């Protein structure tokens, strides 16, 4: 019901966006020819707007049909290339997500228990996120040798931050009286962490995981750019960007694939969240 309506809303907005896209081309794009649209329409747009040209904004059907064409001469179909690239990037992203998630959980737990460490390190954890990772990526690649693992580590660098912050916030969220209650039962430090603090932190942690899922995909794509890895989506974007003039729709297709990976990863984490937190009151 509710989910159905959300999915419906999503596609309605997507459809409206598509209509706006083609309308823009109708008014300001290149001439519509019988050969370049499936409707057999001949039409000369009244204006010429650079951003609406076939080069800068290909017809939607051109992009869709590009998936079924060869990605390079005598090569595999674009959809195969992009599926393989998506899988490759997804592997980097999920590895980075797990590494960063683990690091974030550990740091958050440490900071929650050692205030001095929290005070000393937190400003740097915040500052770390102002470092443009693309800039440090070449150095990480040199340190760790080029390979998808080093891309995963770059992706982990973007992932650990939200998890650290929210783990800390979540572990400190239980009511002091609940902690006192546990102390009155002579509960150990570990029992309090495991039975009170961690369950209370779970909703916070999942909020962070959702942010991190997106960040890990961004990190994987960005990490591929300077590392010379050409098997993933970042490589595909770079590659199709350099052949943009001869086939802009292929770059668009690569972007769509990247978007799908980002959205799917987000949905995956949301699904896990729904299962894990199914008995919690929802806001």
């Amino acid at each position, binding site marked *: 019901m509710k989910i159905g309506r*959300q*999915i419906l*809303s*999503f596609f*309605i*907005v*997507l459809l409206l966006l598509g209509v706006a896209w083609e309308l823009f081309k109708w008014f300001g794009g290149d001439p519509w020819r019988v050969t370049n649209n499936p409707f057999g329409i001949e039409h000369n747009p009244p204006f010429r707007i*650079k*951003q609406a040209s076939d*080069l*800068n904004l290909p017809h939607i059907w051109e992009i869709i049909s590009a998936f079924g064409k060869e990605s390079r001469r005598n090569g595999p179909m674009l959809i195969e290339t992009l599926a393989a690239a998506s899988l490759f990037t997804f592997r980097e992203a999920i590895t980075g997500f797990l590494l960063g998630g683990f690091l974030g959980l550990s740091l958050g737990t440490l900071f929650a228990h050692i205030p*001095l460490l929290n*005070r*000393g*390190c*937190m*400003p*740097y954890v*915040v*500052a770390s*996120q*102002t*470092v*443009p*990772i*693309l*800039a*440090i990526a*070449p*150095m990480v690649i*040199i*340190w760790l040798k080029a390979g998808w693992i080093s891309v995963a580590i770059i992706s982990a660098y973007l992932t650990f931050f939200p998890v650290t912050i929210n783990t800390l916030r979540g572990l400190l969220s239980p009511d002091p009286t609940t902690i006192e209650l546990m102390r009155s039962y002579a509960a150990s430090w570990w029992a309090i962490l495991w039975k009170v603090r961690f369950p209370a932190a779970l909703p916070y942690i999942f909020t962070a995981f*959702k942010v991190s*899922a*997106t960040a890990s*995909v*961004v990190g994987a*794509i*960005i990490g591929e*750019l*300077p590392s010379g890895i050409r098997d993933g*989506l970042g490589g595909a*974007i770079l590659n199709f*960007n350099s052949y*943009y003039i001869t086939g*802009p729709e292929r*770059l*668009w297709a*690569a*972007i769509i694939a*990247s*978007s799908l*990976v*980002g*959205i799917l*990863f*987000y949905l995956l984490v949301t699904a896990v969240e729904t299962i894990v937190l199914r008995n919690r009151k929802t*806001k």
Partner: protein
Amino acid sequence: MGREESWITRWLPPIILFFGGIFLWEAAVRGFQIEQFLLPAPSVIAGTFVENFERLVSIGWFTTKEALGGFVIGCTAGIVVAFATSRWTTASETLMPFAIAANSVPIIAFAPIVNNWFGVDNPLSKMVIVAIIVFFPMMINTVRGLTLVDAAQLELMRSYAAAPSEILFKLRLPNALPYMFNAFKIAASLSMIGAVVSEYFGGNRSALGIFITQEAAQFRFANAWAGIIIACIVGLAFYTVVVLVERLAIPWHSSVRGNNPGG
């Protein structure tokens, strides 16, 4: 009532850590004779920094303008759309799933396209990318802030026969402010990173992202590091300004006053 912890206990640990870290870094590079291209010593980076100070400031400023421009465009658009759609519940409810999905899209992938639209050298193309990156968190948070209003407060306003515009300005808007500041903080750190990263797909020669990638490509890592530090400083300054404004704007909120219960 909780008083602010003293300045010293708050800032001494990070300061000690800062100098300790720099010292260890320097010692490690010298002690283990780490190659320049792996990790330059802080003293070398500092030397480069001083040497190229003017150039670094000018390219830093170029990219800062892109980040600022994108921040302003994206945040304004996000807030405007949020306010416009929150007037009609169905509109914001229809838009939200799309915005959330769009928020999990790696926007940076659009950088080459936007470069083609507005020209590689044109700072506007970077501003647009930054604007799209910050638009979605801004809009989502503002809509949440405007709609997640305490039911009891809404009932109170109704009991006083408050008009819709009064409910908007006296209840929903103040309620949304903490959410909006959260988004501003996210946007502040994203905008500088977004600007630098989008320059990777080509940009003006006097831009920070181009400088860093080119210096790194030519193994002048001390220069690259100096550029990274500029980016960090700007990003931190940006973030700090937002936090300071937040302190002035919403002094009543728990994120500003700390978690000290009353009474």
